[in-house]
């Protein structure tokens, strides 16, 4: 053995830790990464180039925490968490909620950085912060914001977004709050209601007949400030289900107490779909009954009522279905 070899051996003894085996959790996480396939690839595009596959790696390792990384500063964890742990959560969302697809809204390279920061989207970060704060209203608001911005979230970050959303839903289910439900029920004020849009219509599956397990069940009494043409009486509304997907839509099933429909449909139950895609008033019916239809995110509850009334064939909402509702 030469002097160099002896010195290398000594160096190895001093510098090398004892042999280690990977923790089981990390092994199973890797297996999930492998098993989930190529279509949600967070890394760079293959040699042939696939648009919108993202920057190399899973985005620049963020200094801000992502799932499992809250309060940490390493940043290298982000990709692993996004790619591994949250895959299961994404699968749950896809399978249980039967959302069409997380990638149906298309991918474009410029979206990869549109709303991202440090390997994760700002909306996700805000939601994570809200979850840490355990502020129910903040969580509801941040989750709604995440859903609004879902389409601009880069594909590599969508797993993380889905995981955050699932956490939020779970949190809201565990912490029922009228205020939070109001946040969920209230459409975003800035969303246009009349402008035409070239965005494709998103097909949302029919309402689930039973509990989804992802539903905040609070009962709320919204009091919209806007003057409307319907009777100004606050209805008792129970949100039965909020089924969200990251293709930019979510669906709210709610029950209006005491409502007796004057047209065919499930008595007392309305399945309302808010679409963040088109920003338009509903142009077509969708769903199993007239009580299930797409509406714009910009519509207020009372405007929804008006559509219900209109759908029921009553031209004057004040004397029609919404009148019955309120």
């Amino acid at each position, binding site marked *: 053995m030469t*002097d*160099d070899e002896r*010195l*290398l051996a*000594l*160096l*190895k*003894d*001093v*510098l*090398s*830790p*004892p*042999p*280690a*085996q*990977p*923790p089981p959790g*990390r*092994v199973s*996480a*890797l*297996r999930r*990464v*492998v*098993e989930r*396939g*190529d279509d949600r*690839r*967070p*890394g*760079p595009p*293959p*040699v042939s180039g696939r648009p919108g596959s993202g920057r*190399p*790696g*899973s985005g*620049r*390792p*963020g*200094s801000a925490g992502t799932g499992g990384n809250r309060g940490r*500063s*390493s*940043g*290298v*964890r982000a*990709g*692993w968490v996004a*790619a*591994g742990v949250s895959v299961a959560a994404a699968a749950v969302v896809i399978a249980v909620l039967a959302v069409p697809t997380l990638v149906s809204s298309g991918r474009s390279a410029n979206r990869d950085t549109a709303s991202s920061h*440090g390997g994760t989207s700002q909306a996700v970060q805000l939601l994570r912060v809200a979850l840490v704060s355990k502020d129910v209203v903040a969580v509801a608001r941040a989750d709604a914001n995440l859903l609004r911005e879902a389409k601009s979230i880069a594909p590599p970050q969508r797993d993380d977004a889905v995981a955050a959303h699932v956490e939020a839903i779970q949190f809201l289910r565990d912490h029922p709050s009228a205020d939070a439900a109001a946040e969920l029920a209230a459409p975003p004020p800035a969303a246009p209601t009349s402008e035409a849009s070239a965005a494709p219509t998103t097909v949302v599956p029919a309402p689930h007949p039973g509990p989804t397990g992802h539903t905040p069940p609070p009962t709320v009494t919204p009091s919209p400030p806007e003057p409307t043409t319907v009777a100004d009486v606050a209805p008792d509304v129970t949100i039965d289900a909020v089924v969200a997907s990251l293709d930019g839509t979510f669906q709210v099933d709610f029950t209006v107490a005491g409502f007796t429909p004057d047209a065919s449909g499930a008595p007392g139950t309305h399945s309302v779909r808010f679409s963040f895609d088109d920003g338009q008033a509903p142009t077509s019916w969708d769903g199993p009954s007239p009580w299930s239809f797409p509406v714009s995110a910009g519509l207020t509850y009372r405007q929804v009522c008006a559509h219900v009334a209109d759908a029921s064939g009553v031209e004057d909402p004040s004397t029609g279905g919404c009148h019955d509702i309120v």
Partner: protein
Amino acid sequence: MGSTPAEVSTAELQDLVDRARRRDPDAWETLYRLSYAGLLAYARRRLWGLTEADDAVSETFTRACYRIADFEWKGGGFNAWLFGILRNVILEAQRTDRRGSLVDGGAGQVEDDCLDGLLHDEEALAVRAAFATLTPDDQELLELRVVGGLCAEEVGLVVGKRAGAVRMAQSRALARLRSALETVSADD
């Protein structure tokens, strides 16, 4: 599994890599277990804490999983390819986290639990002190060689040098280390 990629046959490794390309989870798990100790040891030398090092290794395999199609089998090189990814992961982590600088830099260095048993070993202490006097390039090269377990050719692939240049650099680094050891010993 106590072996490393360098300790399995080329045929076995190539078979694993081929299966990994076909997204065989078992192959990936085997590769992960084979490479884990070396990658983790290297990451622990370069990052602040064990958790960060473990994260870096995990991130390395995540990237490897998605980039396996880019890997070209040239009679080997898979281990070096992994170390190349890990090196980038660590550099990115260090850029975003100032604490992620080399941890073996002498005063104020983090306590490394794997060395706890050696803290009273004068020779080990001397080696560590001498090692800390080396340049970052020398340290990295020696870490890849002795901690990562890479051969000169593999180190060359990681750092972008020819194997001959790596051997020369290693020889010079060891000479400097030996000199530093003598100085440290004389000071004691």
